[in-house]
């Protein structure tokens, strides 16, 4: 206690000097501070640059040796992918099941998350934990049983099968994120609405959902993301009709020798949807990654 007062008294005496020093110190540090994120971003971008670089080279040039940029610039790989149905249907298939999955996950998770954030009910904690364990379940464990399950339901090789299979980890995640966002809305709002004569569905759609709109957006983003990046289940649940881009890529890699340029271009095109989606949620993304719990 005395130590604190000892330093506090002189500080009050010549406060401008102390404050000036306090201001000067971070200013000096700021000049080097930008280096850390910059170096980190360069580290992140180098492999992506390399992929883009490869995608504009011919296979011969790639195998010919090292070069930091394309010597014979060519867009042949992109033309091939965008004009060959075997290629571009891979992207369309992926986008179809990702969209179905996002719609299902968010719409069933909304009421469930509301229940978890507002009510106590028998077994609520156990249920929530059980849901989360499914987010944590290794997909490798489920590959074979899923193939059997969806074959017996006559859904094998359909977009719906992949969309439903991805619900395994996306629904728990959606419930988790939405519950975080909903708990940030004061309960008085619900009570006032009920007193004003709103029914539950009307209140939920007209008042509550607009309040957590950013949360819903972020949740949809995460469902999109995890369904888009998951490939083990998507690949094994499909053969022809709903084949995702990953399966097209591996099959091409094995049948037509080692077409690195084509593979690189296909890779670049898989990054684009993600980049577009990130741009839309950039202001909420950090809170979303914290699962609404900040």
């Amino acid at each position, binding site marked *: 206690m005395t130590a604190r007062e000892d330093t506090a008294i002189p500080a009050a005496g010549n406060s401008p000097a102390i404050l000036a020093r306090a201001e000067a110190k971070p200013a000096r540090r700021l000049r080097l501070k930008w280096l850390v*994120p910059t170096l980190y971003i360069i580290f992140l971008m180098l492999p992506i640059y390399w992929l883009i670089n490869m995608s504009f080279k011919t296979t011969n040039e790639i195998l010919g040796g090292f070069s930091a940029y394309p010597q014979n610039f060519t867009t042949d790989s992109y033309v091939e992918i965008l004009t060959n149905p075997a290629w571009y249907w891979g992207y369309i298939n992926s986008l179809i099941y990702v969209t179905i999955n996002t719609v299902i996950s968010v719409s069933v998770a909304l009421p*469930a998350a509301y229940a978890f*954030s*507002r009510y106590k009910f028998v077994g609520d904690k156990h*249920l929530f934990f059980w849901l989360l364990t499914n987010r944590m379940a290794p997909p*490798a464990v489920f590959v074979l049983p899923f193939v059997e399950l969806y074959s017996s339901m006559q859904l094998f090789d359909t977009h719906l099968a992949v969309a439903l299979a991805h619900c395994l980890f996306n629904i728990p995640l959606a419930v988790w994120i939405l519950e975080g966002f909903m708990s940030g809305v004061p309960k008085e709002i619900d009570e006032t609405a009920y007193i004003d004569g709103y029914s539950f569905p009307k209140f939920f759609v007209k008042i509550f959902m607009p309040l957590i709109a950013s949360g819903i957006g972020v949740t949809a983003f995460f469902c999109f993301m995890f369904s888009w990046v998951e*490939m083990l289940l998507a690949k094994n649940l499909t053969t022809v009709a709903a084949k995702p881009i990953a399966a097209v890529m591996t099959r091409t890699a094995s049948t037509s020798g080692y077409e690195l340029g084509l593979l690189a271009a296909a890779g670049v095109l898989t990054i684009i949807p993600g980049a577009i989606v990130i741009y839309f949620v950039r202001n909420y993304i950090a809170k979303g990654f914290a699962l609404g719990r900040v």
Partner: protein
Amino acid sequence: MNKTINNRAWFLVLPVLLLVAMNAIIPLMTVVNYSLQESFIAGFWDWVGTRHYEEVLGSERFHGALIRQFIFTGIILVIEVPLGVAVALAMPKKGVWASVCLVLMALPLLIPWNVVGAIWNIFALPEIGLLGWGLNELGFDYNYTNQPLAAWFTVVLMDVWHWTSLVVLLAYAGLQSIDEAYYRAAKIDGASRWAVFRFIQLPKLRTVLIIAILLRFIDSFMIYTEPFVLTGGGPGNATTFLSIDLVKAAVGEFNLGIAAAMSIIYFLMTLLVCWLFFTLMNNDRERQS
């Protein structure tokens, strides 16, 4: 928030319950069935009790995969968590540059996992990849396709590249929630940079860091696609982690009983870790409120 007791809330949870149960319980029971039986001819099953479990738990191969898995998860946690926090601390707090950083940093998280493997495959090729070429030019003898150590280095670097941003984003979100008043008070007290971190920022980061460690632990524990595309589990078995080993046994060798027993053991381990973190998180939440 004090919650109302309302058992009718079950109706709101019902759709989620049905969908997840269909995807979780039926397959899990299939796996349990496989693990306790042996099929010699398709359609005919013999009860073998815990024999598959004994076989898996006693096998060198499983021990190897398990040890490699723990080493891998340990290494990436030790690198990614401090690095992620450091980057988040140095990032601009708001404005255009903060948005630019967020968008660029989130990019690796949205790349399909097989493409992540393919990117690193190309990037690390000894003759024509920037990383492989660069390391060899610098005088290192580097070839991840036949050197176990190089393969490990590449797989770890790939995971750091892929997932550190998750920690950055979580830590950034945690830092955003700190009121400016704390920093002003610290400045007036003449607190050192370390003291600000230790007594203001770190306590606020507690919740998000628990989430970050949980997610990174679990996701690295089930890693499959990226190392499979990059190294195929090789050279030899050097980078064969649990999921790769499991898929090899199930799909490659069609050894269903063994694969199923492995799955159950694997699943129980994840469950245990989940429960530990979940309890930790709940205690944390109750302490705060």
